[in-house]
């Protein structure tokens, strides 16, 4: 393909257009479209919860009492530990310590799995007591909000698993932006829980 080379030469003239901002954007700028978009949707869901609670304050108070605060607290501890490990993984990746970063990512994934196990137990407990999304508005919101958060957590674990593989592949010479991006997504999921936990379990 002799003509192919000169053609791609034309293509490359466009330049890479990489931004040279004075500040550092974790991951890449475009990723924040996703992260802020997600946070916006969760913010709307939280307002939804407040809206419904205003309609039936008594029902919400009595239903909230059936949630196990200690289980919620444990879930929070597990998630915050996961976030700490992700922070340490980013730090290790910045210093070029790929193995160490991998180990910490694995730890964070284990935290995610532990969260999933605890969450499943909570759901099973609810179902065994005959509590379903149909029970009342509070439980509908409880299952929608925690279910949606759990779904995002699973996406976050997939992202961390991809990063783990990427760090193991030495041909991938620039994984730092990806590590930061995946970490930022994970922290977003964590942040959502940190608001969700008091809202559902604590605020009366």
């Amino acid at each position, binding site marked *: 393909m002799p003509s192919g080379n*000169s*053609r791609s030469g*034309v293509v490359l003239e*466009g*330049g890479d257009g990489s931004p040279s901002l004075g500040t550092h954007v974790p991951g890449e700028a475009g990723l924040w*479209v996703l992260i802020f978009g997600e946070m916006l949707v969760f913010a*709307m869901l939280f307002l939804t919860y407040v809206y419904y609670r205003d309609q039936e304050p008594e029902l919400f108070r009595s239903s909230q009492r059936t949630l196990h605060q200690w289980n919620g607290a444990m879930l929070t501890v597990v998630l915050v530990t996961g976030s700490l490990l992700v922070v340490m993984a980013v730090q290790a990746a910045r210093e070029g310590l790929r193995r160490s970063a991998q180990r910490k990512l694995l730890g964070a994934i284990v935290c995610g799995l532990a969260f999933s196990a605890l969450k499943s137990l909570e759901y099973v407990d609810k179902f065994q007591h005959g509590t379903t999304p149909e029970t009342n508005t509070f439980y*509908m919101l409880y299952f929608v909000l925690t279910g949606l958060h759990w779904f995002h957590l699973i996406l976050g674990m997939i992202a961390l698993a991809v990063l783990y593989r990427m760090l193991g592949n030495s041909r991938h010479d620039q994984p730092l932006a990806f590590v930061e991006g995946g970490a930022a997504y994970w922290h977003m999921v964590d942040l959502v829980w940190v608001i969700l936990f008091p809202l559902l379990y604590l605020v009366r």
Partner: protein
Amino acid sequence: MSNAYVDDQTFAPGAFAGNTRALRWLIWSGMVCLAILGPAMLLARVLPLPAATLSAEQIAHRWVEHKNSIRLGCVLMMLGISLWATYCAAISYWIRRMEQGVPILTYLSLILPGTGTVLFLLAPFLWSVAAFRPETMSPDVILALNDAACLAFIWLVGPFIIQFALYGIAILQDKSAPNIFPRWVGYLNIFFSIECFCGLTTASVKSGPLSWTGVISFWNVMAVFAIWLVTMTVTMLRALRSLEARQRTVSESEPVLALR
């Protein structure tokens, strides 16, 4: 290298000029789809969707009262929705240009809009059935048809979730320089893919933000859809302009190629 086949087709001089014109039309068909859909839904009295809290009699009354404008609105909706297929074909063209190796994302991008169009068409179809003989039809049947139409419109999101996710993956995997789409558009697609899950609550909630008249499950999803459509249209038109500019450069600098 793996894009050589596409380039050979695209850069064949005669075919190229015609092709971009067709492609430009297809890119604009998305905006046409939106421009038809909005007024058509207003005409059919389904924007906002009929509230799930309305009784069978209230729904039946609406269908009897407005049956002619509902019929006309449904015809326009059907025609407008069909443009979803033409618009997605334009996106598939760019996916084919971006994708290297086995063109599996391209294949998916061709299948899914076909499914999506059919699912979308169910809504005006069912509303049309309800408007066929609303005077003699039992109000309960009209209610059921309207429920089915509303759920078809907002709850049947599966293929769309995969479709927007694959668009996101294709854009983020793009190795051409400069990128055909800005990378944030890739993330926007992934966001829209996740956003589609908001439609799922409409099958079990009848009022409030999570119902099919709600702020989150309806207006939020529709707003993101409009933002997505405008973004994709603008970026595709921009990519097309730079493609045409490159084509001109190539045909001037390489007359042999241009003659082939």
